[in-house]
């Protein structure tokens, strides 16, 4: 008998939860006794180190210590946000043959973010197995609501690499509402704001007699606590240059120390008006003498530095309300989730945008994982009468070789859903038809995310236009796209070939899964 767990795979921290024998959700603690585990992997000379232990890597070898892999998962290397991110990361990014973003290690090895996330998931899985004394083979994993199909698939691949079967990919805002216990309370109309380490998620969720209906989801994939840290670092680096006359911009180790101190200061400033930042040895002078750096940081300073980021909160919130066809007065409760919502400036901004005070959760970091654990219980029937209804965060489009993209599934369609398109041969005895799938609704392909190119092959020989191929596009409850093709008139199933496809191939995933399983042995 194996168990299932709920996992909040975060950009900065990950949390694992399960349902106890007495039916209560429970957060598992790591070996170090913490409820959250840093989403860090250090590719040390002695093999990968995951979690708290990998913090050491941030000091020793920042170029081999991967953090924030979730932001890279399933993203194209040429995406402007990735280009921008690449300049600020201490490790190097590289382009995979299919255009995905991979991480280039100093040792010359390129690794897929799926593998990094797989290692994090495996570590969480081992935590659960150590606690339960039985094997854990399946999980509900939470993902940002705005994740596109490629990112969802990449998350599933990461789970497979970790030896976990994904019972459900649950969107984080929904998980938060579930973890908050919304299914037990009165029917309400929620707005969930999830500002984590790396991503910002907004969802309009209705709870009506146990039915959770996500009306709209939006978000900003590159807004989170890490960005606040970066803003602090930028300002402190300037301060160091002015006060000490040394430039530490290119000193990765000094920047990393500054990052840790900045994080601590940021956390302290959530409760206090001032905080003391102390680094006993920030960098070394050419003479070998260490440079000490001490400074008092005031909350208003932090808020000034973070204000460009805090201002970015408004747009996704407004857009989510608009998509849900809802005025802000109609929202009955605003839920704040994610560690970064502890920042007073963030609370203030959300209160301003929404015109009402948000609810403060006692455990904004853990509520998503609890929601994931409750989802496990819901799927196995332990919790009855609760239903989650989700919508497609983005539309799907399709194009043939020369044409513009044409929408197949509209944004905010309720999943699971299915649409079809007809393709006809254009020349006599045409053996195959190729088409592209895109995520996004822009007619211009460059405005959309390319999911893959597919071909319907082995078509029956016939004059041009006589073979009509029916391509069915299914978007399932996990938000993953499935395709199938058949000959329209005869109804015969046709072979679909993948010419190009975002993400790892099945073979690569199983190879990595094997490789990761071997580390255990």
């Amino acid at each position: 008998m194996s168990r299932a767990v709920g996992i909040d795979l975060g950009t900065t921290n990950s949390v694992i939860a399960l349902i106890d024998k007495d039916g209560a959700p429970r957060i598992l603690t790591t070996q170090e006794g913490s409820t959250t585990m840093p989403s860090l992997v250090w590719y040390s000379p002695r093999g990968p180190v995951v979690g708290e232990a990998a913090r050491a890597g941030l000091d020793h070898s920042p170029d081999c210590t991967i953090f924030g892999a979730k932001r890279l998962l399933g993203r194209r290397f040429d995406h402007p946000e990735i280009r921008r991110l690449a300049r600020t990361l201490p490790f190097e990014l590289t382009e995979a043959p299919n255009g995905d973003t991979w991480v280039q290690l100093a040792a010359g090895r390129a690794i897929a973010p799926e593998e990094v996330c797989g290692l994090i998931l495996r570590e969480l899985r081992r935590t659960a197995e150590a606690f339960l004394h039985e094997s854990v083979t399946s999980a509900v994993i939470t993902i940002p609501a705005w994740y596109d199909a490629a990112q969802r698939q990449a998350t599933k691949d990461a789970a497979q690499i970790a030896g976990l079967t994904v019972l459900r990919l649950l969107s984080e805002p929904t998980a938060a509402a579930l973890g908050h216990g919304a299914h037990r309370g009165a029917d309400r109309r929620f707005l969930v704001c999830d500002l984590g380490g790396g991503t910002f998620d907004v969802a309009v969720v209705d709870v009506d007699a146990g039915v959770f209906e996500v009306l709209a989801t939006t978000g900003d994939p590159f807004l989170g606590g890490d960005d606040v840290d970066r803003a602090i670092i930028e300002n402190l680096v300037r301060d160091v240059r002015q006060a000490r006359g040394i430039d530490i911009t290119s000193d990765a180790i000094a920047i990393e120390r500054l990052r840790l101190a900045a994080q601590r200061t940021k956390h302290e400033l959530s409760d206090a008006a001032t905080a003391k930042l102390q680094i006993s040895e920030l960098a070394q002078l050419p003479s070998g003498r260490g440079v000490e750096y001490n400074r008092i940081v005031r909350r208003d300073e932090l808020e000034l530095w973070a204000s460009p980021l805090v201002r970015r909160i408004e747009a996704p919130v407004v857009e989510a309300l608009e998509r849900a066809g809802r005025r802000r007065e109609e929202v009955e409760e605003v839920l704040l989730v994610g560690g970064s919502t502890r920042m007073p400036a963030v609370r203030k901004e959300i209160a301003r945008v929404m015109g009402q005070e948000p609810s403060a959760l006692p455990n904004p970091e853990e509520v998503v994982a609890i929601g994931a654990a409750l989802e496990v219980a819901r799927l196995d029937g332990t919790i009855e009468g609760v239903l989650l209804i989700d919508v497609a965060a983005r539309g799907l489009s399709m194009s043939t070789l020369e044409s513009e993209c044409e929408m197949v599934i509209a944004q905010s369609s309720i999943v699971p859903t299915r649409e079809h398109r007809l393709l006809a041969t254009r020349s006599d005895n045409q053996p195959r038809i190729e088409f592209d799938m895109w995520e996004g609704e822009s007619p211009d392909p460059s405005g959309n995310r390319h999911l893959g190119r597919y071909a319907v092959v082995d078509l029956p020989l016939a004059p041009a236009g006589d073979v009509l191929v029916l391509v069915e596009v299914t978007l399932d409850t996990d938000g993953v796209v499935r395709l199938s093709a058949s000959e329209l008139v005869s109804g015969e199933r046709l072979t679909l070939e993948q010419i190009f496809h975002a993400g790892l191939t099945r073979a690569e995933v199983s190879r990595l899964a094997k490789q990761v399983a071997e580390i255990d042995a």
Partner: protein
Amino acid sequence: MTQARTLHVRCSTWEQVDVFTTRKLRKGKLLSMKVPFETTIGSRVTLGLELPNQLVVAIDGVVQRASPIAVEPGKVETTARTWIEIELTGLTDDVMARIRTMASEESEQHTPPIGGTPMVRRKTAPVVDDLPADEKALFQHLSGELRRLRSAAVHDVLGVANDADAAQVRTSWKNLVRRHHPDLVARRNAPAISHLAEELTILSNRAYDRLRAALVAEGRGTIVGPTLSSPAGWLVGFDDIASGDGTISPRASQPRLQHVPDATPKPRTSPTLPPAQIHGGEAFEQRARVMLGQGQAQNAREVLAAALVVYPRSKSLRSLYYVATAVVALQDGEVMLATSQLENALAHHESCVEAAMLLDHVKKFGADRNEDLMRIFL
């Protein structure tokens, strides 16, 4: 001379057998696979296809291509690995027919599997007889529902009146989802039931999304729930939404994705077309007949093709499609093609009056006097 090796392919479900015979094989008999031994071109192999009913079908084959797989640097492979392509000479039509018969007998009660790319998690479908009694009943109930709803119009899927307002539509959709959502049956761990539940939910969601879009377009109050942008493309299946025609049809200025022959812009509605209130496949049939009567065989054919997407099991639509194809062929003077199309029509639906009359006509006059053809449909 190497000895003939036997390779086993185990199919634990009929779905897998179907996948194997239709998708894994190229040109019906070429199979590429990875094998853990070295082999040379021309060596003989026997493929043991293990069927779910414990039968093993032995199929002879000859290796057509073999290429060793490069060992990854740094990894020691203990066994040689080779990609081979086998021509299954023993897979005659007889053998295929036998497998097909067995498959159709065994999986008769299954709905056709939704296929897909390798992205799809292949689920193993259980044999119905193994299900406990209540699951069997559930299965039958769900597949019955699915059959019924598949051929129903949107309003009937949701079980609302044609003039239902937004709130009614939403309530009945919610009730449907509450009854059929795949999550509710997930605990049973029965893929066949989950699949049926998913299909039912897809149907209800689509109907709801369509009706919602139509109601919003009609301006009948703001709708509670996510707003939708109008989907473009072939939504002919839901043309029977009275208000849907002008408003959710694709933006006319945009090039169309599907390249149905001579897809010249054409009026989607004309005053002589039947009122849109008629539901189900019949509306399409009537519409197509009117078009055929007006000599617009090409347009009729397109409408029917689209209708078949929605009502794939409708015999009369299918036969009418062949009739329309035949008329198009006649207009091009291709008597042979027309005759074969008409015979097809009759094969699908014996009582297709139009096909019989046309066939008579073609036998008498060939491709001449086409103007008489139109009268058949009036």
